[in-house]
């Protein structure tokens, strides 16, 4: 195709998106659109899969049967969300194996938040309340993104996600209303998860390299800073309600803007964790790789069994 033809197609493509038309897998799309979507959707899928690890740590030690079934169901949902998203990503012409390889070699990223450890039970509460809370704020606008398979996957994900946040908040509420030691546990978890949760919504607008293009493609409907403000405004009253204190001395309601003002975020920490120097980067990735490698014989055996059954069917037919 000539450069002029591509320019024409690109103009038509941009018009379709501007009209809120969805793009489907077999439609023509600019190469950059395809690549950006593979990057974002796979990063999202990887986050769901790696996100199971910090929580899996507590399944066997959940304090009651009620908490245990809820946590199990949540972790199973995350596996499901990862699978919806991998499938959506594959419609763009990349294979599941390539996606896994990108994760395992570190070529593809996952959300940095999962590189923090879950050292107490209260961390499970904080993750549900804050991490899933921030994730929902990120994800709701994606339900109307321009790429059809991604939007459809996100609708399912968002529907299932709200129980995740509620179960987390309930854990925090119960601990905060318990003994002084339990309340301290909840406060400690909030102290450790608050700032990483704010970072989870991405670098500030001035630093974010992808925002402008992503807004145009409706891969993003609000900027990182807008989403972060929304998260803070919604979460602070929830903390107040259960008697926990947000660990930010500069946090203050601003009558003029009708938003909370908040303190400076330590972006050095964020970039350190992104670059692989967080507390659990190595542990998370090696757990993934180990699971993949140790599962290989199972995958191969399943294929061998399927082939054998197929052969038998063919022989019978002859």
């Amino acid at each position: 195709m000539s450069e002029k033809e591509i320019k024409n197609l690109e103009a038509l493509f941009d018009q379709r998106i501007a009209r809120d038309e969805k793009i489907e897998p077999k439609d023509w799309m600019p190469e950059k659109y395809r690549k950006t979507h593979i990057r974002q959707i796979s990063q999202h899928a990887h986050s769901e899969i790696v996100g199971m690890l910090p929580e899996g740590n507590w399944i066997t030690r959940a304090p009651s049967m009620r908490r245990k079934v809820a946590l199990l169901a949540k972790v199973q949902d995350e596996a499901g969300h990862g699978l919806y998203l991998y499938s959506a990503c594959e419609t763009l012409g990349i294979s599941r194996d390539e996606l896994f390889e990108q994760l395992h070699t570190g070529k593809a990223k996952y959300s940095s938040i999962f590189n923090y450890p879950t050292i107490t039970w209260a961390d499970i509460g904080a993750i549900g309340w804050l991490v899933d809370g921030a994730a929902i704020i990120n994800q709701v606008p994606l339900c109307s993104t321009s790429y059809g398979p991604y939007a459809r996957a996100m609708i399912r994900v968002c529907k299932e996600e709200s129980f995740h946040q509620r179960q987390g908040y309930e854990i925090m509420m119960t601990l905060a209303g318990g003994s002084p030691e339990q309340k301290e546990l909840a406060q400690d978890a909030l102290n450790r998860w608050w700032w990483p949760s704010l970072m989870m919504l991405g670098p500030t607008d001035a630093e974010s390299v992808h925002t402008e293009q992503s807004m145009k493609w409706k891969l993003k409907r609000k900027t990182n800073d807008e989403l972060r403000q929304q998260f803070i405004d919604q979460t602070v009253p929830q903390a107040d309600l259960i008697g926990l204190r947000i660990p930010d001395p500069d946090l203050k309601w601003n009558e003029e803007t009708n938003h909370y003002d908040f303190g400076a975020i330590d972006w050095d920490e964020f970039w350190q964790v992104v670059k692989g120097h967080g507390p659990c980067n190595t542990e998370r990735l090696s757990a993934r790789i180990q699971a993949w490698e140790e599962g290989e014989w199972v995958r191969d055996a399943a294929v061998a069994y399927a082939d054998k059954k197929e052969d038998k069917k063919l022989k019978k037919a002859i």
Partner: protein
Amino acid sequence: MKKNWPLWEVFVRSKNGLEHRHFGSLHAADADMALENARDVYTRRSEGVSIWVVPSKHITASNPEHHGELFEPAQDKVYRHPTFYNLPDEVKHM
């Protein structure tokens, strides 16, 4: 060469009386496993009463580039719709 699990398309009937609708896709070694996986991946909250799985490679899809020749001819055939026909106001239900 290493063989990967093939891709399957999953269709779910959400309740009797409704058609099976495309829900998504997944990888599985064979049809039985595809059904089991579809149950876990797509019906964790009672979303269905029946599941179909179809190997993706067996689906033939129309090409979006042929949209015009396939679908445009229907656009100027307004006489296929009831509103094309004039009736007296007195006729209430037809």
